[in-house]
């Protein structure tokens, strides 16, 4: 048996050598992210009165859906706020790190034929999977220690050593869980695409299950690792059982994936792939036909996913109505606009959040042209009578049009679910209008992506940084009291809040013009530069 693990330690060293920069960036990035926000908190809400008001607004079911429950609302200390705001998000970043890195070292190495070379060396047949998971275990333990000691090191009164360590452990254990889970999916699926697809679908599903559970049947949340870690009640009661439970589950999943790894052939999986068509369909005869064919599955999956997200938020609107009409404090806080219910004002905020999330697939669709180039598939296409404009134009067009599809699907989900739960249902037309005014802001991201692809193809990752910034500005800007100039950086902040605000056509036109100028420059530069 031990033979099956021969040289695992050497492999771990090799993985650290290959990914030293990548691992460093992930580990430091996640730790610094959590610690720096914690450092901000005491100055944001210094008074007891501020905290009381905040705690009251945090009882909002929509907030619970986004962030998770808090056990500390009655005594909303800095520590309780930190545990409430940041735990689920930080943990999700650790999950994303684990998913990407485990896939990279298991299925991706296998698909690209690198594992074959590794296996020809005196290595155990289970060494690679084990080495990958142990590497991620080390990475997540480092995250645990850095966050735990870092938060404690801030010296904030209500962030004690045990709570800080528990916060770090909750983040780390989610990372460990997703490393094990992705390791399992890498055995089941026979290619990178399916492995990543399954892992991310699982993560998003867990988030929604946790949200629905936290705002409805509490037991449901226990099915989600993200829900479980919020039960550790960091900085309030400091329960350690969710950590132990998740570690035990991760170990089970790891054992099962070892078993699957030992009974399968190299390169094979358990989800069978059926043979495809031996002839191309008539639609597959132009660059846009190819782009649509390549993005077909992701487009359908994202449209469905956004629909589910929309309906999850929509199902909250009934509770929200009740909350907003009973909480006097909140009624005082949100400015009353003549002729609009509080719920309506809140809905526009929700739609902005969904629009930001909906920008993720749109960027993926556009940036696909860049990954195609990196995989050296564009040059073959360019050797046929196809212009560069038609190649980059196809992916740009898909991104631009997908913005409408995504907005339509989210509103459809929101409206359907809302019409079951709300007394005073908001009309579909109003919701759609509120969603469509966000499309120009989404197109700004298409513009930035196309500009970078054309001018700075190595820096396209910055588009994601920009979107993450916009996400935090929209999602947490108010809680974190970000200065006004930073909020202006997000194109979504400039979009009028329909139905409360008047639609200012001039503002929207300016956003559109900026988006199209960026796209125009990107196109021109793409047409001028060397293709890799």
């Amino acid at each position, binding site marked *: 048996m031990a033979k099956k693990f021969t040289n695992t330690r050497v492999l771990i060293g090799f993985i650290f050598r290959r990914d030293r920069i990548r691992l460093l960036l992930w580990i430091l990035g996640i730790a610094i992210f959590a610690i720096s926000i914690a450092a901000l908190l005491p100055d944001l809400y210094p008074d007891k009165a501020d905290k009381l008001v905040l705690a009251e607004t945090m009882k909002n079911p929509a907030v619970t859906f986004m962030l998770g429950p808090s056990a500390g609302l009655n005594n909303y200390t800095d520590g309780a706020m930190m545990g409430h705001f940041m735990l689920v998000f930080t943990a999700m970043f650790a999950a994303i790190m684990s998913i990407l890195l485990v896939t990279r070292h298991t299925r991706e190495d296998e*698909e690209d034929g690198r594992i074959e070379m590794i296996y020809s060396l005196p290595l155990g047949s289970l060494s690679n999977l084990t080495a990958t998971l142990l590497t991620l275990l080390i990475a997540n333990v480092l995250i645990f220690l850095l966050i735990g000691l870092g938060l404690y090191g801030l010296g904030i009164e209500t962030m004690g050593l045990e709570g800080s360590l528990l916060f770090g452990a909750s983040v780390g254990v989610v990372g460990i869980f997703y490393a094990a889970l992705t390791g399992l999916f890498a055995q089941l699926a026979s*290619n990178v*695409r399916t492995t990543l697809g399954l892992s991310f679908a699982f993560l998003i599903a867990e988030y929604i299950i946790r949200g629905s559970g936290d705002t409805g049947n509490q037991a449901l949340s226990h099915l989600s690792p993200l829900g479980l870690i919020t039960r550790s009640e960091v900085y309030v009661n400091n329960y350690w059982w969710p950590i132990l439970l998740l570690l035990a589950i991760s170990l089970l999943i790891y054992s099962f994936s070892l078993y699957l790894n030992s009974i399968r052939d190299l390169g094979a999986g358990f989800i069978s*792939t059926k*043979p*495809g*068509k*031996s*002839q*191309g*369909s008539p639609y*597959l*005869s*132009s660059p846009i*036909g*190819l782009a649509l*064919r*390549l993005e077909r*599955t992701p487009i359908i999956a994202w449209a469905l996913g956004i629909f589910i997200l929309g309906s999850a938020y929509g199902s909250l609107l009934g509770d929200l109505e009740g909350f907003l009409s009973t909480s006097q404090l909140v009624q005082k806080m949100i400015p009353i606009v003549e002729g609009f219910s509080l719920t309506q004002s809140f809905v526009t905020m929700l739609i902005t959040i969904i629009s930001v999330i909906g920008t993720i697939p749109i960027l993926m669709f556009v940036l696909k042209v860049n990954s195609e180039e990196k*995989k*050296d*598939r564009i*040059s*073959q*296409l*360019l*050797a*046929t*009578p*196809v*212009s560069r404009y038609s190649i980059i134009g196809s992916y740009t067009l898909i991104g631009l049009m997908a913005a409408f599809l995504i907005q339509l699907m989210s509103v459809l989900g929101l409206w359907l679910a809302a019409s079951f739960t709300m007394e005073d249902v908001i009309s579909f037309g109003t919701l759609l209008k509120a969603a469509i005014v966000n499309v120009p802001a989404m197109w700004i991201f298409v513009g930035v992506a196309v500009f970078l692809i054309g001018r700075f193809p190595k820096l396209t990752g910055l588009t994601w940084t920009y979107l993450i910034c916009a996400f935090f500005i929209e999602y947490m800007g108010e809680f974190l009291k970000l200065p006004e100039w930073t909020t202006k950086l997000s194109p979504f902040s400039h979009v009028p809040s329909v139905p409360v605000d008047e639609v200012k056509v001039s503002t929207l036109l300016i956003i559109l013009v900026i988006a199209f100028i960026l796209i125009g420059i990107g196109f021109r530069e793409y047409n*001028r*530069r*060397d*293709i890799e």
Partner: protein
Amino acid sequence: MSFIEMSKVRKNFGIVTALDGIDLKVNKGDIYGFIGPNGAGKTTAIRILLGIIKANSGESKIFGMDSWKDSVEIHKNLAYVPGDVNLWPNLTGGEVIDFFVKLRGKVNKKRRDELIERLGLDPSKKCRTYSKGNRQKVALIAAFASDVDLYILDEPTSGLDPLMEKIFQEYIMEIKEAGKSVLLSSHILSEVDELCNKVSIIKQGKIIESGSLDELTYLKRISITLQTRKPIEGFEKLKGVHDIKKRGDLLLFQVDQEEMNNVIKYISGYEVIKLESSPPTLEDLFMRHYKDDGGEA
């Protein structure tokens, strides 16, 4: 009319000079060999011809049109097989073949099916499951199934087995008979020797030799390994003999083709035990080129 015309083409990647002013001329009906070792600049030159990258200076034309500006027009009448074929993992081989053929114009279904049959490809498999050789077959089928005047093939046989290579050569001959042109890059001299009527040899971004095969003096030297019962004397004074080396009883040297007869007459007086001759390899060629340059091999 020249199908391909490159003159004084230079390309730098940062401070590295990939092409140092190369000239290349391929006429209608030529099967043109483009040979050189790995990293000599073959693929860079081809990418410039295809308008995928832009030359820093010099002129590059195909069918008399600028290969950067008029690439779309040029590509209607051209098929390309890259050295490293990268396909879309979730499309099948059949889908990729049809896609490329449709982009280039009319689909000749009979020819496509015949090619698939002869090269023995399963077109219903996803590309991610294909080996290197099978990916190369997909690209070759897509190229040969298109009715175009110029084929640019970058080391097209590097993943094929000898049987498939034979079939490949038959298709090249068919193209030749139809009066079309091929630019075939390779680092194997014998492959080019069998198929091509003209060659250019590239090394470190420079064309060091080009012309028809008969014209290339370097290609007309034959390597000989000789063993005789009586020791040979005065051999080095013979005309047309180069690079004489002694290895035990064996004598290794090279002979110019036109002096072959005299050399044979001379050595026959020394009781030949063993005589082996072999065509020049790319390696010999470069060694000689360096020596002529006064450089080090």
